[in-house]
């Protein structure tokens, strides 16, 4: 085993993670190589020094502060719920909720021409004021009347052809 390989395996050797045969080779090299032996001793010292940093004790009692924050968090929520449950708050909130639900559920009057526009020209971003749109709808209606079965693709191609060369 060469010095480079031994250096790579040093960490695993310290953690006692090397398989038997590799470990034997490693130890044989360490016995014969002064530099690697020194390096291993330094690495061991460093790991041992690092471990000496552990065991710090919290300078304050964490539970008092943690408990205060938990209670505060919970109390804010509890106060909010209790406030909502008061009759003079709950009544208007409930009424507003009902009104909102009715407003959302109420069928909205939609213009038929808009529907047609949405069905037949979903990808074309045009408004009713644009002349292109008016031309498109006009041509489209004429083509549609001539067909018994409305194939959207055929309709679109026919419309495009009419746009290019109007009748």
């Amino acid at each position: 085993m060469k010095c480079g390989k031994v250096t790579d395996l040093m960490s695993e050797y310290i953690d006692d993670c090397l398989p038997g045969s590799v470990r034997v080779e490693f130890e044989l090299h360490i016995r014969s190589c002064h530099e690697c032996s020194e390096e291993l001793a330094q690495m061991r010292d460093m790991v041992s020094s690092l471990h000496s940093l552990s065991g710090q004790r919290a300078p304050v009692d964490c539970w008092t502060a943690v408990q205060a924050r938990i209670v505060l968090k919970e109390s804010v929520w509890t106060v909010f719920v209790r406030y909502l449950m008061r009759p003079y708050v709950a009544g208007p909130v409930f009424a507003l909720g009902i009104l909102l639900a009715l407003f959302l559920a109420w069928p909205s009057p939609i213009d038929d021409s808009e529907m047609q526009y949405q069905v037949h020209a979903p990808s074309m971003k045009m408004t009713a004021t644009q002349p292109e749109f008016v031309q498109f709808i006009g041509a489209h209606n004429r083509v549609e009347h001539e067909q018994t079965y409305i194939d959207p693709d055929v309709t679109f191609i026919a419309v495009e052809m009419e746009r290019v060369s109007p009748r």
Partner: protein
Amino acid sequence: MRSLSIALKPTGLTYNKERGMHGITDQAVVNRVVKGDVDAFGVLVDKYQDRIYSAVYNYVSNSEDAVDITQDAFVKAYTKLTSFDSGSTFYTWLYRIAVNTAIDFLRKRKSRPADSLDDDKFSEVGFEPVSGDAGADPVKVLNANEQQRILHSAIASLSEKLKTVIVLHDVEGLSQEEVAQILKVPVGTVKSRVSRGRAELRNLLRKQIGDMV
């Protein structure tokens, strides 16, 4: 020392800080907390606050910040307790929350250059007595404090990933399997990070000691 005594009525178990735990598993306490017994969470805080504080302190190298982060981690753990998977161990889950909180803290501090000056960073390290013994040899205490300062400085220079495994494995003494569980990475990844971290740390320490000489 503050005396904490919490009665766990349904099981008839009690916890006393002076006398320690009496057959209460973390899972049993977690179940009590989830059912609404906030005070039972104090048992877990008292049990793990020193371990979490120690890991966080060695991660951020500042006592005040470490206290804040430790408290934040416990509050986060409390709020997320319902999502705790009973199949895993409580303390590895708690360590994960603490490590993530510490990482977030350091990232935020990095984005505020005024707060990340080296003078502030290590202002406290080196002035805390290693031994509380009044008769301790001052030269030894000074040397130990100097050694701590150098080690913290070197750890702080490591990348986030290497720093995390070095603090958890080499400083706090958690096994590679536990670190893998905390970081949710394979054990092989932890092994290679430990190896790389040590090599980098050795180079950093050599450089620092060389600069001092």
